[in-house]
């Protein structure tokens, strides 16, 4: 196909998948190079109202900065609940009082004037008051999926992303290697220089490119619902590590039948799930209350319970000829640390930065070395996060006494070591270290 030859012509990228990650990538590209890059985003789900999805996400500080840099956050802020504190307990369901082993207080990482993460002194001199310092931002926000998707769709349209209500069936690199031909489910074809697959864990593009997938299913399923409660959660997230797996209560913005809302996400052994879903509402509420605790007062179910499979999977490669994978198409991790969508947004930030930097150097944005660079930057981080969440899940999803004692001791120690605690806070907030992508620091490309 014909590429750009100076002013007037431009690069064309097709993004397959209109979820949060695909939308963010399309927007980042248009924001940085509106004249040089034309973006087509294809997803049959664009025809559907985003309200159908009742999930909520913990948006890390880094992801929030990225959304700010893309001018999306301002439209979301009023509907995002600050997570100011995270309490982690380790307990049996029967325990009347659940000992608190790890408390994340304060708000995220303090930032310096350059916009990077500030260093809190030398790591060997832990301050005795680690969170007494003023923090500029909460470490995460809870945002409902529909709010995020709607804001991203609207901003993409304003930014001139072509939105197609069709799926990508196949991408075939041209024989001469200069472009890629994209077949859509509506029968039409698009010529492009690069295809970005954000089309989910069963990515058709990944399979079409012959990229292998390695992974496993967990013996648990995830369950989620939105719960109303009488007392204010005060921005506190609570995670109980129960023998069957983690149970998280994540604060949402006010509303619902009792004035306050939280998202609950937990995992159950697969064999328990049909039983849970078959319970009538009163019984269900009782089951939830046993896990939820009593500290937030009376509770009510605001949405039906949704069950979803828990799995771990990683694409053998993140790139192929004129193809880049991102988000769930590249990796699916255990939701224990709430990092799935943040990991996908990191992919989008890094990929957009590599593409835009190539375009500004006059280089071919879909050339193998540009894509390799993206893969190198993202794959190690993804493997590390995937294995960490897997280890976390294995550590907490059992009731063997010595293991339980060890982890109680472990979390207790973490809580007493400011430096270690800061490390965990920093990871939870997604604060990028050196070499992190500009968008994740809140800077425009």
């Amino acid at each position, binding site marked *: 196909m014909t590429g750009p*030859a100076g*002013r007037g012509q431009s690069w064309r990228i097709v993004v397959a998948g209109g979820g949060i990650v695909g939308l963010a990538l399309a927007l980042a590209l248009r924001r940085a190079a509106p004249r040089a890059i034309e973006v087509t985003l294809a997803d049959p789900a664009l025809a559907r109202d985003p309200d159908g999805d009742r999930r909520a996400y913990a948006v890390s500080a880094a992801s929030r900065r990225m959304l700010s840099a893309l001018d999306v956050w301002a439209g979301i802020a009023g509907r995002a609940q600050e997570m100011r504190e995270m309490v982690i307990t380790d307990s049996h369901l029967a325990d009347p009082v659940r000992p608190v082993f790890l408390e994340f207080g304060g708000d995220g990482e303090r930032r310096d004037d350059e916009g990077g993460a500030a260093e809190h002194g030398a790591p060997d001199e832990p301050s005795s008051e680690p969170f007494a310092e003023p923090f500029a931002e909460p470490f995460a926000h809870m945002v409902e999926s529909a709010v995020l998707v709607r804001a991203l769709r609207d901003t993409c349209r304003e930014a001139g992303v072509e939105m197609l209500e069709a799926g990508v069936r196949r991408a075939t690199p041209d024989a001469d290697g*200069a472009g890629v031909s994209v077949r859509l489910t509506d029968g039409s074809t698009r010529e492009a220089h690069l295809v970005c697959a954000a089309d989910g864990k069963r990515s058709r593009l990944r399979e079409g490119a012959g990229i292998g997938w390695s992974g496993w299913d967990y013996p648990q399923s995830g369950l989620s619902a939105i719960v109303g409660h009488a007392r204010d959660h005060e921005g506190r997230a609570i995670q109980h590590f129960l023998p069957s797996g983690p149970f998280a209560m994540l604060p949402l913005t006010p509303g619902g039948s009792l004035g306050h809302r939280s998202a609950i996400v937990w995992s159950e052994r697969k064999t328990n799930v049909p039983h849970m879903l078959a319970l009538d509402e009163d019984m269900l509420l009782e089951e939830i209350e046993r896990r939820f605790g009593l500290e937030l007062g009376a509770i009510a179910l605001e949405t039906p319970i949704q069950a979803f499979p828990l799995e771990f999977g990683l694409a053998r490669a993140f790139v192929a000829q004129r193809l880049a994978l991102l988000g769930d198409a590249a990796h699916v991790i255990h939701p224990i640390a709430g990092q799935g969508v943040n990991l996908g947004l990191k992919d989008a930030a890094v990929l957009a930065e590599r593409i835009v*930097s190539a*375009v500004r*150097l006059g280089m071919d944005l879909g050339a193998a*070395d540009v894509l390799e660079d993206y893969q190198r930057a993202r794959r190690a981080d993804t493997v590390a996060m995937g294995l960490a969440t897997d280890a976390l899940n294995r550590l907490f999803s059992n009731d063997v006494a010595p293991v339980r004692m060890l982890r109680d001791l472990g979390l207790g120690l973490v809580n007493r070591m400011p430096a270690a605690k800061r490390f965990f806070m920093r990871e939870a907030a997604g604060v990028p270290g050196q070499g992190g992508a500009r968008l994740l620091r809140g800077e425009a490309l």
Partner: protein
Amino acid sequence: MSPAAHHEPHADTQAAAVDPQEVARFEKIARTWWDPKGPMRTLHKFNPVRLAYIRDHVAAHFGRDPKDGAPLDGLTLLDVGCGGGLLTEPLARLGAQARGLDPAPTNVEVARLHAERAGVAVSYEQETVEAVVARGERFDVVISMEVVEHVPDPDAFVRTCARAVAPGGLLFMATLNRTLKAWGLAIVGAEYVLRWLPKGTHEWDKFVTPAELEASMRAGGLAVREVTGVTYNPLQDAWGLSRDTAVNYMAFAERPAG
């Protein structure tokens, strides 16, 4: 007098710009220019640093925005020893009216074919810079990257390239320093140990020191603006600018507008 007047392009002075053995060596690997994993992979790794250096200095000099899609819009550019067009083609995309010269016919053919496939307007000629200069052609930007160390008479070559620069224009050059470190890294390390480059790519005694390069640029009537080192970071597998000019370095100079 014209500084390179004795280099008119007749048979014996052609030899100042072109070494037949060097040309034959590059002919053999020409087909692999655009393969980022092939014999030219080091150049591919190197390319973003070189392109950014040229783009940023040209943009600053001519008052352009480097983030603009076409910061070199309308500027004439000559790439002397363009090889497969690894620099010429991107610089043309940034808006330059670019011409690439190379003595190896396969290089020119590979560069032309690639630009055609990519839909980028660039002209490539199997011609010497002496011939272009003799016709009186002058350019806003002249570049000759990793070429000086392959020509028989580096001083004459640099002065001829300088003559191709229009008043107010810039000359960019990149090469290898003639130091023990360069011998160790660029020849023993890159060619024999790491196998980054085909053996015999470089001959150490042809390497040019920054002082020699600067002297030739000045003799060609240019004012040297900057010499900067380029070093490899093995942890990031990436090249970057550095104060260390002991191995790879780049320099640029300006022909005063007067």
